[in-house]
């Protein structure tokens, strides 16, 4: 296997890391107004406490989770400059929306608890909800379009616009990501909390999980029928089995196994995407001769060698300390762990 192929796999791993980890962050963000809303909370005070429980399940880790996509972006730039250039300039407006969403969402996490006023918190709650939903949807649209092919011309430039990406398969991809992350996030909440909220999260996972399973199978079949190969069919089947297994484990109250189930589902979905892509990185729907391939989009062997050494040395270290963080914050949270809000202070000038 040559180094460029190795880096194609590395990118698959980075996207897997990102979508598995930030996937449940997105899920928690999208469920904030649900599990912390009128339907489940007894009153406004309870709703606020529940929201804080939800946010604290991901509080110490969301930022580290997000770095996976920055690393994926940087690695694409370094290992496949043409892929990076075509993708980022071609998917201009969706990426702009993703950036705005991530900015607002991240500030929501950081700033929400910094003032006691209800309106302040409510606004940042909106930012967290939309900031989780929009990237979940758009990453699904974008990645599905990459796999299905986009209009790339002879100069490696994308023709078309935002609406080129909003085709049925792309939109289905977006919905699948949203549904999968909702399920994954609900199971994560069940795994990280205790008491009422834990059981309610499991119920939500059960219901949304069925929708996710139906949509995901439909999408993977669609992609498989048009571009599938043996290996991608294998990963598709594993993804489906893992999701059903995860949902069964969730039903049985085995949240740890359920979480592994949805994590494997996401990993196998990414694997399916990358296997279908191979040996292209961005196929052209205009003319197969203009496909961006592992070969014609990659960096030189020397650069890839440098990158490989750095990645082999430092990735295990990163995995160790990130894993350790999850261990440090392994305790389940309940409303009683949430400290009282500071009373409205009188600001002295």
């Amino acid at each position, binding site marked *: 296997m040559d180094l460029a192929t190795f880096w194609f796999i590395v990118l698959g791993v980075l996207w897997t890391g990102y979508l598995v980890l930030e996937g449940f962050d997105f899920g928690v963000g999208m469920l904030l107004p649900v599990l912390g809303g009128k339907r489940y909370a007894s009153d406004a005070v309870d709703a606020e406490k529940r929201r804080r429980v939800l946010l604290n399940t991901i509080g110490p880790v969301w930022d580290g989770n997000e770095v996976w996509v920055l*690393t994926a972006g940087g690695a694409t730039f370094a290992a496949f*400059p043409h892929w990076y250039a075509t993708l980022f300039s071609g998917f201009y407006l969706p990426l702009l929306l993703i950036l705005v969403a991530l900015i607002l969402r991240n500030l929501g996490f950081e700033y929400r608890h910094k003032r006691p006023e209800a309106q302040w918190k409510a606004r940042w709650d909106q930012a967290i909800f939309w900031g989780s939903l929009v990237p979940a949807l758009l990453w699904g649209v974008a990645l599905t379009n990459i796999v299905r092919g986009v209009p790339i011309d002879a100069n490696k*430039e994308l023709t078309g616009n935002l609406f080129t990406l909003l085709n049925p398969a792309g939109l289905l991809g977006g919905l699948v990501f949203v549904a999968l992350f909702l399920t994954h996030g609900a199971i994560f909440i069940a795994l990280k909390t205790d008491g009422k909220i834990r059981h309610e999260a499991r119920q939500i996972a059960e219901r949304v999980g069925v929708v996710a399973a139906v949509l995901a199978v439909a999408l993977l079949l669609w992609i498989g029928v048009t571009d599938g190969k043996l290996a991608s069919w294998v990963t598709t089947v594993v993804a489906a089995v893992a999701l059903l297994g995860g949902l069964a484990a969730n039903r049985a109250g085995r949240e740890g196994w359920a979480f592994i189930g949805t994590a494997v589902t996401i990993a196998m979905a990414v694997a399916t995407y990358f296997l279908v892509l191979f040996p292209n990185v961005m196929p052209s729907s205009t003319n197969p001769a203009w496909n961006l391939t592992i070969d014609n989009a990659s960096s030189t062997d020397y650069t890839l060698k440098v990158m490989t050494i750095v990645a082999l040395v430092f990735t295990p270290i990163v995995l160790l300390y990130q894993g350790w963080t999850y261990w440090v914050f392994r305790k389940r949270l309940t409303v009683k762990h949430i400290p009282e809000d500071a009373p409205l202070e009188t600001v002295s000038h």
Partner: protein
Amino acid sequence: MDATDLARWQFAITTVYHFLFVPITIGMSLIVAVFHTAWVRTRNPEWMRLAKFFGKLFLINFALGLVTGIVQEFQFGMNWSDYSRFVGDIFGAPLAIEALLAFFLESTFLGLWIFGWGRLPEKLHATTMWLVHIGTVLSAYFILAANSFMQHPVGYTYNRASGRAELTDFFAVLTNKVQLVTFPHVVLSAYMAGAGVVMGVALWLMRREAKRAADDAQDVARTDAPMYRRATRIGAVFALVAAVGVIVSGDVQGKIMTEVQPMKMAAAEALYDSVPAGQGAPFSVLTIGSLDGSHANALIEVPGLLSFLATGDFKGAVRGINDLKAEYAQTYGASGNPRVADVATAFVPNIPTTYWSFRLMIGLGMATVAIALAVLWLTRKGRTPTSKWMAYAAVAAPLLPVFANSFGWIFTEVGRQPWLVFGLMTTANGVSPGVSMGEVITSMVVFTLLYGALAVVEIKLFLHYVRKGAEPFEEPQEPADRDEDAPLVFAY
């Protein structure tokens, strides 16, 4: 105005904005780590209160630095795709390594620091902030290595077949001589900015506490004024020590710049005609009139200083814009490099911008030094002065070094123009060919409005927490002694 101009403005707006927060993050992470470690070592409650207080301010600032940094990584591909294709083989590696080595370290350990109160053993907890700081410095190293390549490309070869610059020696890129002086200059300038924030905030609170004590006829020593006095003095000392390094590294940087980018040095002074050896080129502190070489009237001039900045010799020769323009036209204009064709003869950056930003960088940095010295003098031997000048100094202390940082970057990036990568590619050749004017306008409007609104939110929140001051001290419990069901010490 065309798509290139818009893309340039967008890069300028988003980068300058991003870099308001970055130096504060680098500098304050160090000072908060020092406060936190001082608490663990001495058990003096003041250190813990200061660590928590400045830690909060640090986080408010960090949040915006982080999110605006994501935009930067995407922007190369979005607006500068031809640049990305041309140098991706070289430029991408430091960016990817920055994410892997620095971003993971910063964000993971910052999460541990924020939520670590009462959950991590004390020493380990203090260590997490040191790791955050190391992350910020590593991040600076790799992104500056990438930038230094644009100022002075090394360790590469131009491949005619693939039509791009390709990496041949990564170590050379990491030890580019421009990089080796830029890195200390930028990091130490960042320390000045972080120190400026600590100095200013603590000075303001010291004055407030001392004034309140005076109004209520209380003993100042029993208020928090002495604690803030100590903090403002620490900030001042940090700023002064860093300033010495900034000056030394800046001096070396000037000489290397004269060697590799002589046009930038000429542009810093708006020096049109070369000054031969033996004469000594003067440095004008202020100028009125135009800077186009026709009738500039220097108000204050220091004889020989430009020669000294450029060569280390008060009588050294300095080449002027006109000679360099002719030389560049010869070397690059006639080279047949398609990525230079558009400028042919116009190899001169925007002179008023380079001239004034160079002076503002130095002037604001010097003013920071003056404030730090004044703070140390006026607070000597336990003094807690309350004059209104203290309030002005408190506001100026954070702003001056932060803007000095901005002007330094404006100088170095505008001074590089019209090059995107010096000698290899002009800026106009790097822009994304497939991105429409409408798309660039959309993103520019969105970012400008969003960034403007966020600046208001951030500053209000920051000032709110400054006014609150440090929280009262609470004796912390070791994690092992805490009740499993007790509320968390810190939670969102």
